[in-house]
């Protein structure tokens, strides 16, 4: 670990009287793959929504980058520009935009040409668009021919697994240093899960730090350097996959207090 990329301190989010996230501390080092596990409703997705500021935090700090900046009050699109990109558990593509356009939207924070440039079609605009498209093509090719062959098709016509892949490609389009993946293997069959695991490994090799939420333990075991288990918005265990999985607190959270370890 070469230093911290993300450090979350005492993060709390209340919805009315419910503590969705409660005094949570998590840190992610540069180049790490950290997995967050926990039962449904334990606050994992809320955590992601807090990091990208879709929700306002009730209390706590979210430091990102080097030097660390508190991003808890920064606008969502600016957080993206700083280098945090995410995918969604419930897929949120732009269904009527084509596959390549979905990826191009992911570059919004980086494209500099405004409306006047667009109307005039200045050489700068044309260059920027051409470069963006070339990069989109390269990102789509991360998933073999699966997305490239659907280049001009509306995203809504993709198969389920391809939509998950496209969400990752769109997230990568902003050249993030931290990628948040919300259940990247949800709804995938074992072959597809295996493939997405390889793909995430490739993305990690490109220099991306990854924080992921996942229920598929095979994927977590295969990828994660470190696992954080949360329940009721609180961290209940942290460590290697083996450590966390044998932790009695974790077993209790998943199976209930009556279960025998």
């Amino acid at each position, binding site marked *: 670990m070469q230093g911290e990329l993300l450090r979350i301190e005492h993060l709390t989010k209340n919805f009315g009287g419910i503590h969705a996230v409660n005094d949570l501390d998590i840190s992610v080092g540069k180049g790490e793959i950290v997995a967050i596990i926990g039962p449904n409703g334990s606050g994992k997705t809320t955590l992601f929504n807090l990091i990208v500021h879709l929700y306002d935090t009730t209390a706590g700090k979210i430091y990102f980058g080097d030097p660390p900046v508190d991003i808890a009050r920064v606008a969502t699109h600016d957080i*993206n520009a700083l280098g945090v990109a995410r995918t969604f558990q419930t897929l949120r593509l732009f269904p009527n935009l084509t596959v*390549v356009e979905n990826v191009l939207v992911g570059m919004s924070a980086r494209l500099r040409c405004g409306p006047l440039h667009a109307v005039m079609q200045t050489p700068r605009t044309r260059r920027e668009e051409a470069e963006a498209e070339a990069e989109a093509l390269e990102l789509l090719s991360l998933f073999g021919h699966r997305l490239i062959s659907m280049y001009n098709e509306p995203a809504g016509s993709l198969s389920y697994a391809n939509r998950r892949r496209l969400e990752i490609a769109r997230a990568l389009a902003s050249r993030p240093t931290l990628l948040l993946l919300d259940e990247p293997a949800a709804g995938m069959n074992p072959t597809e899960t295996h493939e997405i695991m390889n793909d995430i490994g490739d993305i990690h090799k490109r220099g991306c730090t990854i924080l992921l939420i996942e229920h598929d333990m095979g994927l977590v075991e295969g990828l994660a350097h470190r696992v954080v288990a949360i329940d009721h918005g609180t961290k209940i265990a942290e460590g290697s996959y083996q450590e966390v999985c044998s932790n009695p607190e974790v077993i209790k959270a998943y199976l209930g207090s009556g279960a025998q370890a």
Partner: protein
Amino acid sequence: MPETDFIDAQLTPATVNRQQKLRHTLLTVAIMIGLFALMIVGLVIERLSLFIAFLLAVALLGFLYQRTQSFKRRATEAFHDSRGTAITLLILLVAAYPIILNQNPYLIHIGALSAIYVIMALGLNITLGFAGLLDIGFAVYYGAGAYTSAQFAIHFGTSFWLGLVLGGLSASLFGFIVAWPALRVHDHYLGLVTLGYGLMMNLLARNLNFLTNGTDGVINIPPPSIGSYSFTQSLQLGPLSLPFQANFYYLAVTIALVTAFVSYRLRQSALGRSWDAIREDEVAARCSGVNTRGVKILAFSIGAFFGGIGGAIYAHMIGFISPENFSFLESMTILVMVVVGGAGNIMGVAIGAIILVVLPERFREFEHLRLLFFGAALVLLMINRPEGLFPRLRMRRVLPAEKLAAMLTQTRQKTASVGRIKAQ
């Protein structure tokens, strides 16, 4: 069969392409001239019974077109393939309109009025069609442009051309103002906010006498001029003398074409993509780095700008404006133009605007009864074509075939190697 082989050898791909291209061009030209002729016929029919028969015939034609899939596909391909020709021909036909109807100043005036509404409808199309922001107060921008340009011309002697720009900018400012509260609400609630804004501004226009001269309106707005040439003079084109309305017609039509061009470029741009994205899923757009506040404010301001331009031309063409011109009903009319034509489709919106200017004029003798017909027609249309006459077109970036093929072979290898790892 050696003979067919010989023929095939003669037909190189280039020849086939050229023949196909020619066929497409001819089909495009035929369709466009046919539609233009149809429109002229519809305009010059005097007898109402004949006109109604004409409308029914056109509706039938449209219905048949819907049903014949093969022709529909061929026509679409033809237009796509010969876009350059289509645009040139469109400009020529539009330019020919006052020359053909030389003897009929009224119809030239209607043409100019249509063009003004095309400008405004295209403006609303940016807000509603591109960015998906429901604006039921569009008459505010229309009014802002008209009053600004008119009052500057009357009190400061500003030329129409400067007034046009000032009108557009002042309308933009009004769009910018409503964008702020509008950022906090969505969908129907946004409609209510803009509706309230429209009603409020109309009330202000009625009562701020020092600015708008209240309900009496502003009279004697000077017509535009270029040097010593006033737009109220008849237009001399060589041996041809066109009624003065043709001046306004050419002015409005030129600006309408520019508006369409600007709309097109914006839609194709990164900004257009951002608008598409917030229309489809705002949260995902924000997480993808789209500055949703910024692009929404731009959508309101740019849309309003064209509303103001339309208003400025209107004020100087008619010479008189009052708050009546910018009422709630006016906002509704422009909204209906966009919805009927097909929100997001530039050509569709333009056609929607023309239809909704021309038809009420043709049915003038029915007085208020015409609204009844309109209501019924609108209901029928929305049931049968909920996306409007011309639904939104998807942007298509076509990846050159050879590039795609190259990418595919390259990436198949990658997929294959992943497959091998799995197999091990």
